[in-house]
């Protein structure tokens, strides 16, 4: 029933008599050519000046006070063959009546309360992702934006928990929803002083399965409820003057998290095979984790142009989140302590703590232009200091003796500084080259592992010199080529897989063959090595893609978009395999082919009728060979001036060579009506 209200309201809106105006020439979103914006731009650029102007301004001479559409209908999901939990983890579309989407723009010709009001959304009626947006703007008075999203996050992938037990119980399953709402209000947009306020709310709630771990020996999977919420408030003023700009913002957050478990009964982790003549079972568990946090933060942003040849940039960011922790755990049953080889009837743990993390960031830079030369220079610094305190009071029911309380005060400090210079030179009117250098220096001090022999904390450093180069070549308006390269050498790094001795390159080419035909190709590579004898880390990833956009006759009859991508990743790193510290190499390979296509055909004989075919396929081989097909077909038939009938079919097919039990396939049909204005 939830979707009926917006439908009803929409129909009421349509029932109103609009002020007299003609129907806009280019109002329908579906009538827009499929050509991407950049392609349109390029086509426009390639055309003579007059044509350029026309293509860039599809303006109606008169406008309706309301334009937009609403899509309502019904979705059927055929029996999902294969693993239904996997289907929910990947696709998760459901059956039933749906409000597939709506998008309205209201324009008040008299500009009384607003100039423009926008309302749009997708996926209402129980879909795994629902969004809504409301925006209203009145020139020089206000600008309001409200955005809402509700995204389901279901995950019960069998192989994630245990690749060797296909029917196994997934101990890392959860079924949650995350909701995000944000509200922003700018006052007097377009003026020199723009005060603004904003409120953001991010929350998650749902259920999941977690493991209760007893020592290093026993584990008991348990259902638990999770709930977290972050509310963020901010306000400030933007001062936008001709010579400089400053934004001064002050904000704060409130954070809360409540995870709880209340479980009684037999458990999958119970040991029914006697050990020392007795079985092990968890009779009941009550667990509560309660976090409350606050934060304050400040932002100062600056830009300026002191002279025509000089732009300056700067920002100062500061945040200081704090959290207070309250944890209680009570377990009863027949539990076993492997260390003392004793059975005991239960335990409880209480923990309290707090953590604070002042975080300061700053960035300053200049841009200098002098004839054909341009220099970008920037300096960045970042400092995060975590400090925490924890008090832990464990008590074992065995003989009701309280174990000694313990306290801890871990600290973590992460700092880095970076300075980067880029010099651009226009070698010719069509060729610009770039060269530069980046120096990155970082220091960290983090809590050491339990078995660390070097003390309670361990220090790390990163020291990296990076050479930068690039070029942009535009021999004509129809052809452009861009390439950039980074090559680095590090003498200190944080972790084994950090960027060390690496080369990174990207190249892009774009060719507007005709006014309606655009080709594009991309290539990128990252090669990262750590040749230290013990490590021998060797990482390489490559990606090459090509795409074509064909929109003959401004896509009135036919348009085609096709993309193909081949990516490969290989990684080898040495490690010592437990329990005997056997030397081994962890190798990962992934060679993937991806293709996406969309083809729109205007059906002859029926004005406005359109057939769409396309979809995507993904095929990979290597460490986790996977196939994922999503072909799509859609038919839109106009029934009336403002009404069309849409039908869509989509197939989802998922399979993994090594984990056949995770495969699924299903057909999804949708049919519905689109009311447009």
């Amino acid at each position, binding site marked *: 029933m939830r979707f009926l209200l917006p439908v009803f309201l929409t129909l009421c809106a349509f029932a109103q008599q609009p002020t007299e105006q003609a129907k806009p020439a280019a109002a329908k979103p579906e009538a827009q050519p499929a050509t*991407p*914006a*950049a392609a349109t731009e390029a086509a426009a650029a390639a055309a003579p000046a007059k044509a350029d102007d026309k293509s*860039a*301004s599809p*303006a109606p*001479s008169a406008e309706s006070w309301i334009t937009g559409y609403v899509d309502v209908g019904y979705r059927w999901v055929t029996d999902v063959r294969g693993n239904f939990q996997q289907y929910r983890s990947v696709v998760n579309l459901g059956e039933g009546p749906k409000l597939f989407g709506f998008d309205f723009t209201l324009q008040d010709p008299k500009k009384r309360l607003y100039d423009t009001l926008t309302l749009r959304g997708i996926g209402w009626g129980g879909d795994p992702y629902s*969004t809504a947006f409301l925006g209203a703007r009145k020139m020089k008075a206000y600008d309001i934006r409200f955005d809402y*999203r509700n995204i389901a996050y279901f*995950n019960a*992938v069998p192989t994630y928990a*245990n*690749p060797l037990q296909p029917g196994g119980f997934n101990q*890392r399953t959860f079924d949650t929803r995350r909701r995000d709402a944000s509200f922003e209000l700018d006052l007097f947009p*377009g003026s*020199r002083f723009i005060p603004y306020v904003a409120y953001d709310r*991010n929350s*998650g709630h749902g259920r999941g399965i977690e*493991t209760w771990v007893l020592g290093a020996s026993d*584990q008991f999977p348990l259902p638990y409820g999770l709930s977290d919420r*972050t509310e963020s408030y901010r306000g400030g003023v933007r001062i936008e003057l*001709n*010579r400089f700009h400053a934004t001064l913002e002050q904000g704060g957050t409130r954070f809360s998290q409540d995870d709880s478990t209340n479980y009684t009964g037999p458990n999958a982790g119970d040991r029914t095979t006697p050990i020392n003549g007795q079985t092990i079972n968890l009779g009941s568990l009550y667990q509560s984790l309660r976090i409350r946090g606050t934060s304050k*933060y400040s932002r100062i942003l600056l*830009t*300026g142009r002191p002279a025509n040849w000089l732009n300056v940039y700067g920002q100062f960011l*500061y*945040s200081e*989140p*704090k959290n207070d922790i309250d944890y209680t755990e009570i377990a009863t049953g027949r539990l076993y302590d492997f260390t003392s080889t004793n059975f005991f009837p239960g335990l409880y743990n209480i923990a309290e*703590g707090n*953590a604070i993390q002042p*975080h*300061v960031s700053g960035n300053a830079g*200049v*841009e200098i232009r002098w004839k054909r030369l341009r220099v970008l220079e920037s300096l960045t610094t970042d400092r995060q200091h*975590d400090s925490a*305190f924890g008090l832990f009071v464990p008590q074992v029911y065995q003989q009701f003796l309280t174990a000694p309380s313990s306290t801890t005060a*871990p600290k973590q400090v*992460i700092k880095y500084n970076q300075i980067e210079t880029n010099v651009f030179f226009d070698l010719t*009117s069509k060729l610009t080259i770039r060269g530069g250098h980046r120096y990155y220096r970082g220091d960290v001090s*983090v*809590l050491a592992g339990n*078995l660390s022999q070097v003390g309670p904390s361990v220090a790390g*450093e990163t020291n990296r010199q990076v050479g930068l180069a690039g070029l942009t070549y535009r021999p004509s308006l129809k052809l452009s080529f861009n390439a950039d390269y980074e090559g680095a050498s590090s*003498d*200190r790094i944080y*972790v084994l*897989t*950090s960027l060390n001795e690496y080369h990174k390159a990207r190249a892009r080419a*774009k060719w507007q063959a005709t006014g309606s035909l655009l080709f594009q190709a*991309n290539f990128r590579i990252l090669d990262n090595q750590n040749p230290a004898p013990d490590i021998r880390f060797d990482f390489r990833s490559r990606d090459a*893609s090509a795409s074509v956009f064909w929109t003959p006759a401004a896509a009135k009859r036919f348009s085609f978009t096709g*993309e193909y991508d081949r990516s490969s990743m290989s*990684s080898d790193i040495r490690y010592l395999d437990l*329990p005997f510290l056997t030397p081994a190499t962890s190798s990962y390979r992934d060679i*993937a082919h991806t293709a*996406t296509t969309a083809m729109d055909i205007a059906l002859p004989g029926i004005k406005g009728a359109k057939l769409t075919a396309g979809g995507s396929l*993904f095929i990979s081989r290597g460490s*986790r060979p996977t196939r994922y097909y999503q072909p799509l077909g859609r038919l839109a038939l106009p029934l009336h001036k403002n009404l069309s009938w849409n039908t869509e079919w989509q197939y989802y097919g998922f399979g993994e060579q090594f984990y056949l039990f995770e495969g699924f396939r299903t057909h999804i049909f949708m049919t519905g009506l689109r009311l447009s204005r």
Partner: protein
Amino acid sequence: MFWPNSRHRQLLTSPLLAVLALATTATIAWGAQEKPGAPAQPAAAAETKPADTKPTFVGSTTCQGCHEDIFNAFQKNPHQVVETDKKRGFENNSCESCHGAGSKHAESMTAADIVNPSKQKPAATDKICLTCHLNQPTHVGRINSSHAKNQVSCTSCHAIHKNGPHGLVARKPADVNKQCATCHSDIWASFQKPYRHRLPEGAMSCVDCHNPHGTILARQLQTVQANEPGCINCHGDKRGPFVFEHAPVKMEGCQSCHQPHGSSNPRMLTRSQVRFVCLECHANLPTPTAPLNGTIGTVPPALHDLRSPRFQECTTCHQKVHGSYVNRDFFK
């Protein structure tokens, strides 16, 4: 009444406050001065046309004579404020604010006599746009932006003349994604993988995570709550601060374990099985003493028999790998 004692009155009238007020007023007055050369010499005009006789402004109504469709469209365009707002310095000359003074073009009617930003070098095009838009918060990270470094001009994404409330740039998530994918087709391919963020469905857009104008963070990642990475905007429970931090989360970022665009591995992990993600750092290799080529985290916290399936999925027990409030081993 509001200043009950003499001390407050003294403060109000103190020389220091007077100097501060004067300095603030002077700074704002200086900042509010018309830009050098504007409107008599806009950036666009100075950029390309050192003509024999300096062209002069002819006004937008003159442009309307030949370019009426654009002129009509412009009336609903956000840039229309340039036409009417005195403080911007181009009142009644909004066309020429970007295209430069148009008297020569009006006489000759040839395209060569007018500046067309979309046909200029990207840096020159950007300079025209930044004449007005530099002094806005959007561009504070521009200097770090790979778009700026790779000569991607403003007009690559923004359609300047386009009519309507959404005219200048795509706003709907699906449209934003389509626009970004035009150039970043390799990234868009990642979103066709089974485990991904919900971009193809239109529930999210590229600009939810990336700021195309540039930010203080690498990869043009959005910043939220002052200086946190954009991931925290939706995954607020991963922010902390935790009593026991997992250092790579803050040191190297989420992408040290996750492929944020999409992956064929569950949970968008970088490796096909969890233990191989963990073993890349917790490799049990002897730890060189930092900082001599030292790396941290190589020694594991316990000696598990990795041949046993129960120990192969590390996060079954070490659940709180993003950081734990109560357990050093991330059990809870």
